[in-house]
């Protein structure tokens, strides 16, 4: 009996190994099922009728959203949102002919926060070519592009807060108007309203009305007409040809006074 009990050691070790591997395997299985169920219930694809004016808004600008990737698609008549992030809900309302798309953070246990950008997937938004005005109150990076070089007749982009940065690439527009309602100065390393005009852009007329913020033009092709209504507090980055071609007008009425 004593010898049998004493030999229990190796068997207990084997049981411990089984306990460890089996337990982790079971937990993994349960978590995967739980997550799969959550994904099944989460609407990853949402569609709404498009209007010419769309407002994109976050419910809590102090919390980071995933990156927004907006894309003009020929042949579509609806706004299509692709969102696989379980902790972000997207909803839409229509008011006075303006479609509002609202991003809200799912309520979690108090104090339980994701690290910035941890586990975030980009939210893709497909827009029809009929959209002419986009307002942003999202407080995070946004990229705007087009799937083809069908030129948009007119595009008005307005940053409503001081934390959204908008990058434009692969886009063809006759008249592009950039505006900002941010009136705060950049302090230390806080973000501020920023337009970044990148590669593969073809713009015939560029108009910018910025009280503060940053405008960066990185494309090799310069627009035929450039009208910049910038205050002294705006940071402008462009090549010399762009700067020579630009006409500088009066700063917008909501610029900060020194």
């Amino acid at each position, binding site marked *: 009996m004593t010898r049998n009990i004493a030999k229990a050691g190796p068997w207990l070790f084997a049981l411990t190994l089984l306990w460890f591997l089996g337990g982790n395997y079971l937990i993994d299985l349960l*978590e995967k099922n*739980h997550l799969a169920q959550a994904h099944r219930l989460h609407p990853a694809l949402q569609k709404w009728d498009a209007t010419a004016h769309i407002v994109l808004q976050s419910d809590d600008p102090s919390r980071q959203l995933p990156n927004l990737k907006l894309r003009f698609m020929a042949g579509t008549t609806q706004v299509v949102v692709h969102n696989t992030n379980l902790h972000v809900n997207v909803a839409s309302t229509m008011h006075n002919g303006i479609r509002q798309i609202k991003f809200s953070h799912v309520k979690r246990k108090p104090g339980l926060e994701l690290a910035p950008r941890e586990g975030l997937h980009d939210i893709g938004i497909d827009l029809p070519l009929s959209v002419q005005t986009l307002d942003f109150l999202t407080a995070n990076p946004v990229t705007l592009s087009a799937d083809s070089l069908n030129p948009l007749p007119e595009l008005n982009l307005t940053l409503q807060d001081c934390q959204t940065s908008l990058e434009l690439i692969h886009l063809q527009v006759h008249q592009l108007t950039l505006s900002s309602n941010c009136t705060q100065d950049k302090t230390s390393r806080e973000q501020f309203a920023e337009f970044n005009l990148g590669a593969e852009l073809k713009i015939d007329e560029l108009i910018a009305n910025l009280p503060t913020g940053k405008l960066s033009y990185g494309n090799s092709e310069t627009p035929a007409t450039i009208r910049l209504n910038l205050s002294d507090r705006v940071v402008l980055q462009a090549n010399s040809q762009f700067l020579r071609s630009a006409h500088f007008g009066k700063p917008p009425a909501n610029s900060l006074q020194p």
Partner: protein
Amino acid sequence: MNNYFDITRFGRLCLAQWAENWREYAWFAAVGAMINLIFILIIFSSEAPNSFHSFNFEGQIAWYLTGLFASGLIFAGRHFRHLTQPGAALITLMRPASHLEKWLLAFLAMGVLFPLVYTLVIALMNFPMVTMAKHWSTPRVDCVGCTSAVADFRVFIPFLSQSSESTRANPDHFIRSQVFTLLILWSGQGLIASATLYFRRSPILRTTLALFVLFVLILWSGISPHRGVFWSSGSMEVLALRPLESLLSLALWTGLPVLIWLTAFFHLKEREVA
């Protein structure tokens, strides 16, 4: 008087253990303190005169845990070292104490007294260095997202210190992480002690080899550890743990050191019988 456990007999066993090993313990503590001091001086001089980030609260936690695991596992391997020599092994095994008492002594020495003494030594050594670092460090001027310009230079004492700036939003998680660390330490020490008891010849080498094989086996299985209730990160963070998941993870991680130490108990019995 109980065959399995007698408090008087256990007390005499503890005294005998102390009488035979106090020099070993003192040398172990002295060597550990010396190594700690050397590292402190090197890091202090390399980080002066600016951030001293290794001496802030989070830096101390990282250093504390590294030292605790490294020295704790070595200490665990040394507890049954007498069993490698035939003469000394006989004396150790023939001591007038039950298996349970010898096993309990091992657990108390490794799992309770060692972490306490280690914490005391580290805290005493850290206090003057952290005070100096706090006095000499420059405020953080370009720290994005920091809630204060001054770094957190409190001395870290496990289970007593409040959570750090970055984890203040979730103090519950801070405590749970420390509990988890303790459970893993106990599991590691139990594993080392168990292997030392099981392997009669070249226990250190065979223990190292066995742990390596175990590690490869776990990697090969493709099963990754899930901390469950002891963690709050990753995709599961958006979903609250279900009761079954919480219970399973609690049972897994508390049961692990229990089973390992139970294995050590039976290995000790086997050595005596043999």
